[in-house]
């Protein structure tokens, strides 16, 4: 599971108000390098919940990876940003798309219900008696 998916998942457990953002507990994660796509990232940026993304990088033990506020379009489009390891574009790309959480748990912020992440796939299924009314 990549952090881009984490950013869009919410819990439906009984008692949850918004069920968002899910807390992330990571057991195992890997990095798979990919080519950054600046247009894709610029398009995704307004759709992201930035605070949830930053919190997710913190729970991975990468507190310095992303700034507290989202990068601007200009920062993402800066010349050579795709090749510069430290650029805002590269950092966002790494956070959203290169980090793969293989094993861990997603925790509902309201009810503490745990959803397992196994072999890279989060399992959001609930038992019948657990679903939100």
């Amino acid at each position, binding site marked *: *599971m*990549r952090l*881009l*998916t984490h*950013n*869009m*998942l*919410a*819990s*439906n457990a009984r008692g949850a108000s*918004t*069920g*968002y953002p899910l807390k992330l507990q990571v057991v195992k994660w890997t990095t798979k390098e990919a080519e950054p*796509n600046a247009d*894709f990232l610029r*398009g*995704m940026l307004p*759709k992201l*919940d930035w605070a949830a993304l930053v919190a997710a990088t913190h729970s991975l033990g990468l507190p310095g990876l992303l700034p507290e506020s989202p990068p601007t379009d200009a920062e993402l489009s800066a010349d050579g940003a795709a090749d510069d390891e430290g650029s805002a574009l590269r950092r966002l790309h790494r956070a959203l*798309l290169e980090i793969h959480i293989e094993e861990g748990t997603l925790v509902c912020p309201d009810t503490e219900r745990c*959803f397992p992440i*196994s*072999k*890279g*796939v*989060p*399992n*959001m*299924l*609930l038992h*019948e008696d657990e*679903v*939100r*009314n």
Partner: protein
Amino acid sequence: MATGLAAGGRRLLLPLHLRAAHLLPPQSHLSSSASAAEGMDGGDRGGGRVKIFDRELKRRQRDRAAWAMGKTDALADAVADNLLDRLEDCRKAFPSALCLGGSAGAIRRLLRGRGGIEKLIMMDMSADMVRKWQEMENATDDSLETHFVVGDEEYLPIKESSQDMIISCLGLHWTNDLPGAMIQCRLALKPDGLFLAAILGGETLKELRIACTIAQMEREGGISPRMSPLAQILKKDTALATAAIYQSMFGLEDGTIPATFQVIYMTGWKEHPSQQKAKRRGSATVSFSDLQKQFGSNQS
């Protein structure tokens, strides 16, 4: 959601109601209309909810289906292609899309860049099915960002207003609360987001149903009104009789048998201020009778 979907939703309520009534035990028939009506609103979630499908059993069936699934499937591919064809009528792009259960594999296979999708989440309640899609994904080499989630479309685990499009191909007919599932899709969509779905309609496999009914009457002296949309396992001799009746009633000269599949396609848009609205009643400035004069008087 826009009217197209609302109409589609209403069309589906009637069969839901009938199926629900069939499944109720005889002693509760007096209250059946009331409880079925509650289920139809989609508002009765929880304890008193009408259960047509055992979702846990369905999940296990999907696990098994994952292992039996081939690389292509003529029926699913035809429906998926038909559904995706609707994206070609749209000028809008849908960068982040969610694909729900059913034949999501066929959607992924046939997408071919349609809809301007940049990121696709594929979700199913069966972990084995998701795993299978993941294997298939590793074999494709286009650059679409594809993510996988195990989740239930009856309780959509997706944040509100986060998706540009939700597409479901041959999956939603297995939900107990179709309007409820569609309401959750609408919540997960961004304003002006698109909902596209194909479900199996009541005419599906009618030949099989007819053959089942006749065989059951003949061998068991009555029919059990327990058929949900798709057929169930029968006793062995009834099953053999079913096959024989199917062959004799519907069989073709070349020895094959036809099977009918009715597919209902639904399209819905989440509200957005930019969408066209109906004019206020009485705001017309031109009379239709004047219009007729403009076009000449071909008709009497």
